[in-house]
Structure formats: C-alpha cells, structure tokens
C-alpha cells in the first residue's frame, strides 16, 4: 500500500484511485464493493427480463414476444437472479465487508483467495452473458433432463459452464468465511458473543462448501451428456432423469437457505439496533441458524412430490420439510419479542427489516402449504410456488439486502443518504411487492402453471394486477440507486456510528481504514448490549 502522507485520513477508499488499484486489491472491503457493483448490474439485467415477462403476461395471448423468447427470458431471469444476484448478494457484499469488521480482524484469512473468488464470479458471469448474447438458453434455471441434454437447441453448455464457475466462487468464499470466523476472532470474542449476522454467514458458508460442489459436478455431467450423447440422466440412454433432480435439488434447496439465512442475520442486526434492545433468546437464534442450515440439506425431495419419486421418499421429505420450518418460526417470534419494551425508531433500515419480517412470515407459511403432500400435488409447479418463493427470495432476501445496504451505507461510504427518500422507497417496495406477488397465490390455487407464455383468459385480471405491482416494484428498486448515488457526492459525513449501534464495525471510523482497526479491539460482552436495564444475560 502506498503511504499517503499528508492526506486527511487514510481510508480503504482513498488507498488508491486507479482502476487497477481496485481490480488488484485484496482488501475485503474493496472486494465487497467490486461485488456490489457487479451484482447490481446483474440484478438489473435479471430485472429487465422480469419486466418483459410481466409485460407479456398482461394479456392471455402470447403477443409481445414469441414463445421461445419468453422461455429464454424466464430462464435468464432465473439463472441470473439465483446465481449471479441472490446467492452472492448478502454474503459477498455485506458479508465480505462486515465479517472481518464484526469479529475485529484485519481482513479475511485468505485475501488473495477472496479476490480470486470475485474473478471467478466475473468469469462465470461472462460465460453466462455470452450464452445470452449468443441467443439465450431455454431450459429454465433448473436444467431438467432430458430436455436440457437432448432436446433444447440453445446454449445450455455455456450457461452451465457459467454456473459451474460461479459455483467455485461460492465455495471459496464459504471456505474463507469459515476459516476467518474460526481462527480470527478478536480477543474475548467467543462464539456466543458473535453478532447473529456472523452466525448466519457461518451457516451459509457451510452450505456453500458442502452443497455447491454437487451442483458443479451435476452440471458437468449434463454438459458431457449433451456433448457426447451418452449419460446417466436420459432414459433413452438407460439413465434416470430423477437422478438428475435429486442431485440438482441437493444443492438447489439448500441454496434457498443461502439466500434467506444472511437476510435473517441482517434483520437481527437492524431490529436490535432500532429497537435498542437485546435480541430475544440469543442462543436459540444462533442454534436456529445452524439448525436451518443443516436440516435444510434434508428436505430437497419436496421439490419432487409429483415427479414420480417413491411415496416413501415423499413422506420422508415432507416431514423433514415441516421440521425445518420450526427454527424459522422461532426466529420470527424472537424478532417480534425483541421489539417488546424496546425503544423503537423507524429509520429506513428498520422499515426494510420490519417489511422483511412480514414478507418472510407469509413466504414461510405458504411453504408449509407446499410441504403438505396432498396439497402440494395440486399446487406444485403453479404460480402458488412462484409466489411462495418470491416472498422468500424477493420479499425476504432482497428486502433484507436493501435494509442491510441502508444500515451499513454510512459505514461503507462514510455518507448519510436522504432518510425521507429511503423510507418512501421502502414503503413503495413493500406495497409494490405485495401487489405483484399476492395475486399469484390465487392464480396458483386456480391452477395456472408456471412458465406459461399464454394462459386461459379468466386468469387475466390477476395477471394484470401482478404486472401493475411489478411496475411499482421497478420504480421502488430504481429509487435507492438514485438517492444512494446522490449521497456519495452530496451526503453529509456519517461519523463512525450514526445509528448508535453496538458491534465492532461501528467502533472504527467510517469509511474504515485499510487495516480496519487502529488497534485490535478486545471484547468483553455479548452482542446487542443496548442500554436495557438488565444485566448481561448471554
């Protein structure tokens, strides 16, 4: 690092101004920014696809785009949103930025590996974008065989290669977090003094490391099968398409928890801060995080209740799916209880966090409908499923991601944004979201299948409502882009701790210096030690 003598104060932002100083930086904070920029780009590409999908569905006839284009649009929407936005969203940006700060470390354990992860992400993104530019992929993000291996005429291998590569980005990020959290905590920072956000990053990392390789190998198998015309997934070749589904969902169901666990961590940080209260039942919250991560591995077969898997498997996976809902329910109740006797203020991050709790509750509850065997038979692959997982992934994960961005923006940039605009955007997104996705529950129960380019006319009213909501949602997502950028130039200096929050990341200046802390802090109490009259419990 260049010694910047005479400048006001050395921060990670002014440690270098050239493009190369960013692209070659091994500072976890700079890498977090690199991720933030790239995932935002992908979010808007995926969002553009969603916009076109909702426009097409305004009318029952397939009149805006052709059937093939529509199929490519929802595939692109899924692939990009899942692998290039949602999965890396909180872990790679906020996690990268905050984990070392929250545990009082100078950086992640393997900074160069961290930079390599970002390059892998970019490389994977390039493959996928290349597949899109070359004409797209029409398999759906699930790559089901034998359609993907033998019947699709699109660029399946390139897209699979992109996901394969970005998978290694996930694995290496997870590895880095696990080692960092185990080995680099500040003196006195015991496991049960860790902020819940760090717990969720730890649990997420376990999923990254143990689930992602299975997806990678499965996509590799698909590509080879497609290329050489021999393989174990296509029944015409003697294979079993359900084997693909098992391997795929072994990764892709836990991947849902990769999206929602970090969101839960963010919500825990925000709610405690703005309720000025300790989190209710800290230890149960931490155990619930681990329980969700581990039981989350055991429920994948609930995606396959009507696939032709055995009814024994259906039974096992159904009951395990109910089990994973218990720790999620505990978390919702504990967040609510955290508000009790707090001193609550309603700054923008808090609105996002409360919105998250509400939407996640609906998303989680509707998941219970789908875990019920006989009921899932009716609702499987309908818009009910679409609505359910968007409540989890968009209502849950994206809402929390935005909440986290707003909460830590002053720390990351050293600037304050307009609170009024931010609250307005939060409320707009909440209503836009509900208008978009609530009608889809009804559509789903009516039986409208997912991935339909055309649909029976009696579904039109609900689809129009949904599309109307989507336009509000789009405005809601563009707003933060505007006022946050504005704050970069014009925002008032934030100071080290504008929210008077606890947590080590607030004990260093904003933006933090390259080495995070002038001296490594020593921790003497648990997290969330807000001024409640109670003595330290946990």
């Amino acid at each position, binding site marked *: 690092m260049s010694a910047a003598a005479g400048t006001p104060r050395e921060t990670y932002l002014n440690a270098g101004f050239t493009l190369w100083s960013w692209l070659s930086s091994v500072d976890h904070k700079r890498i977090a920014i690199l991720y933030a920029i790239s995932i935002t780009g992908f979010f808007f590409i995926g969002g553009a696809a969603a916009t076109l999908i909702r426009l097409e569905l305004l009318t029952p006839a397939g009149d805006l785009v052709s059937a093939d284009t529509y199929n490519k649009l929802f595939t692109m929407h899924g692939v990009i949103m899942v692998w290039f936005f949602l999965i890396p969203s909180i872990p790679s940006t906020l996690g990268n930025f905050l984990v070392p700060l929250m545990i009082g470390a100078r950086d992640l354990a393997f900074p160069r590996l961290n930079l390599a992860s970002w390059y892998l992400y970019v490389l994977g993104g390039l493959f996928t974008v290349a597949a899109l530019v070359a004409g797209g992929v029409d398999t759906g993000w699930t790559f089901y065989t034998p359609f993907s291996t033998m019947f699709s005429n699109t660029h399946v291998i390139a897209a699979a290669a992109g996901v394969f590569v970005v998978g290694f980005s996930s694995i290496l990020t997870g590895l880095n977090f696990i080692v960092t959290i185990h080995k680099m905590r500040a003196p006195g920072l015991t496991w049960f003094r860790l902020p819940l956000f760090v717990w969720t990053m730890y649990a997420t990392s376990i999923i990254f490391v143990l689930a992602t390789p299975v997806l990678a190998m499965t996509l590799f198998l698909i590509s080879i099968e497609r290329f050489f015309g021999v393989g174990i997934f296509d029944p015409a070749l003697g294979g079993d398409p359900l084997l693909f589904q098992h391997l795929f969902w072994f990764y892709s169901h836990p991947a849902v928890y990769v999206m929602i666990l970090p969101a839960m961590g963010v919500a825990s940080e925000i709610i405690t801060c703005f309720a000025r209260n300790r989190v209710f039942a800290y230890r149960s919250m931490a155990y619930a995080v681990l329980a969700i991560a581990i039981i989350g591995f055991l429920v994948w077969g609930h995606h396959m209740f009507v696939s032709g898997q055995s009814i024994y498997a259906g039974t096992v996976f159904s009951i395990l799916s109910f089990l994973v809902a218990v720790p999620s329910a505990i978390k919702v109740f504990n967040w609510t209880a955290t508000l009790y006797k707090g001193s609550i203020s309603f700054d923008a991050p808090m609105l996002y966090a409360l919105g998250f709790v509400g939407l996640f509750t609906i998303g989680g509850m509707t998941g219970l409908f789908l875990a019920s065997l006989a*009921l899932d038979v009716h609702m499987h692959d309908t818009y009910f499923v679409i609505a359910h997982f968007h409540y989890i992934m968009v209502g849950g994960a994206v809402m929390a991601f935005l909440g986290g961005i707003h909460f830590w923006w002053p720390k990351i940039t050293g600037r304050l944004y307009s609170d009024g605009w931010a609250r307005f955007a939060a409320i707009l997104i909440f209503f836009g979201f509900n208008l978009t996705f609530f009608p889809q529950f009804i559509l789903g129960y009516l039986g409208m299948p997912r991935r339909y380019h055309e649909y029976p006319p009696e579904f039109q009213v609900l689809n129009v409502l949904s599309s109307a909501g989507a336009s509000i949602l789009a405005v809601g997502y563009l707003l933060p882009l505007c006022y946050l950028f504005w704050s970069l130039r014009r925002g008032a200096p934030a100071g080290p701790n504008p929210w008077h929050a606890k947590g080590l990341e607030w004990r260093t200046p904003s933006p933090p210096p390259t080495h995070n802390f002038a001296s490594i802090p020593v921790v003497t109490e648990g997290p969330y030690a807000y001024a409640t009259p109670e003595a330290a419990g946990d």
Partner: protein
Amino acid sequence: MLNFPLFPERASALAARVDSVFFVWLALAGAVALSVAVLIVVFAIRFRRGSPADRNRESGPARRQKDRRMEIAWTLTPLAIFFTMFAWAASLYYDHAAPPGDAMEIYVVGKQWMWTLQHASGRREINELHVPLGRPVKLVMTSQDVIHDFSLPVFRIKQDVLPGRYTTLWFTADRQGDYHLFCSQYCGTDHSRMVGRVVVMAPAAFAEWLAGGSGSPTMAAQGAALFRQYGCSGCHGANASVRAPKLEGLFGRPVQLADGSSVIADERYIHDSVMLPAKEIVAGYAPIMPSFQGQIGEDELQDIIEYVKSLRAAAPGATR
C-alpha cells in the same frame, strides 16, 4: 365484465378433501401471520422511541425462566401443528396413491407439444379427455420425449409424465362439465400450448361418445395386429419354434427372474421387457430378445400392453 374466478371449481370428492387441508392451513397461517403483524404494530406504537411506556422489566432467573417457557411454547406448538397437518396431508396422499382395481383405464402419451390419449375401445383423442361421471378413471401415462406433467386442477391432481416409464393418475369425477387440462412441467417452446380440456359426461352420453368416432378396433385388437407386425408372435406366439416366455395369463402375476428376484408383470414390466429386454430376464430363458427401443412408438407399445392384458383371462396354451 370478465370471468374472474378467485377459487377453482372442483369436480371430485378428492378436490373437496384437498381444499379442506388448504382452508385449515389458510386459517392457521392467517391467524399466526395476523397475530405477528398485530404484535409488531402494537409494539411499534407502544414502544416507539420517546413514548412514555414502561420499559422496566424484571431481571434475573425469574425472567429467564419466563422467557424460556415462552420459547418452549412457541417451539412445541408449531411442531405439534406441523405433525398433525403432515399426518393429515400424507394420509390423504396415501389414500389416493393406488387406483381402485375396477378403474377404467385410459392411456396417455405426452409429446412435444400435445397429449394423445387412447381409450381401451380404441377411440383416440388429442388434448381432450372424455370421461364418464362417477366412475374411477385411471390414466396410464408416458412420454415420447421430455418430461411433461398431466395436471387437472379441477380434481386437484397432477403427475409428471416421464419418458421410458409409466406413471399413473386417477380420479372419479362427480360433476359434469369442461375443465382445464394443463402440462405443468416445462417441456420447451410450446409448453403453454400443451393444454386441453377434460370433459366429464353423463355415463350414457359417454357411452355414446365412446361408440362414436371412426369405429376403430379396440386397443387390444390393434395390439394383436402390432404383435404380429413386429414379429413378436414369432417367438411368443403359440406355435413359435423359439423358446420364449408365454404371455397368456401373464399380466398381473409375479414373474420369477433369473437373478432370483420376482416382479409383478405390470405395465412397466411389459414396457421394459420390450424396450430394455436385458434388464429383467425371466428365470430359465436365455437373454436373446432384441430391444425394440426406437422402433416401437410409445402409443403402439400401449396397444401391445393392452393386448397382453387381454390375454390375462386366456387359458394357458390357448391359441389365437
């Protein structure tokens, strides 16, 4: 101005039972979501910053015990509800897993992007399924290419239709009318056009409909013709010189295999014996049968299966 339903029609007893699970979940989820929402709003107002609300609370072991009790309550209560609902939904699923023995069988083949169906009488239909009121109907389904899904929302049932395999679906319609039939598993370009209707008719009208059409021979008769055409009868026929397993009285019976195990001779078994003859060798026979994969279409194979079924009643050794 518009036909604007908010809840699907139902035309079977099962549909009502599935709906009741749905309504109970709706009530439970609604109650929980509402109470969480109300609590959040109440706390948010009462404990807003600067409000005069009392924020003192007891501390020490007494409170910790109270918190613990509350936590146990809101862990065990959902668990109990979940297990109950699991048991209910699962038992409904089991009840409906096996079709009744007297069900009327209809064969379904999914192909990109249409459904072809054939009744035992030989009457074929495309993207339409005519069924009689009040009689159990069993669909025996397979796919010619990719995975499809035969979805009948009005009966609250669906089932993936897989290539190289038979899956079944059954229902007893209890209301006349025209209802949606969807393909619910994404299958390529015209997935959303792989739709049709199921027509539930009064038994008499159905019988009349069934007798109509082109007067084609029954599936079994068509199967018998194919059986000769593809040369099956050369080995499996009564006067065959080659020693091959006899098919009379085979269907539905257990078959002893060369590896010591036994299987029931069902649709899947017949299908695989034609397409993958080396997979299950009948005990005492040489594995000499060639595979017909790529030569016999799935529809034709269904005719042959229906023919083998028709031999069920035939006395062993009977000639045709």
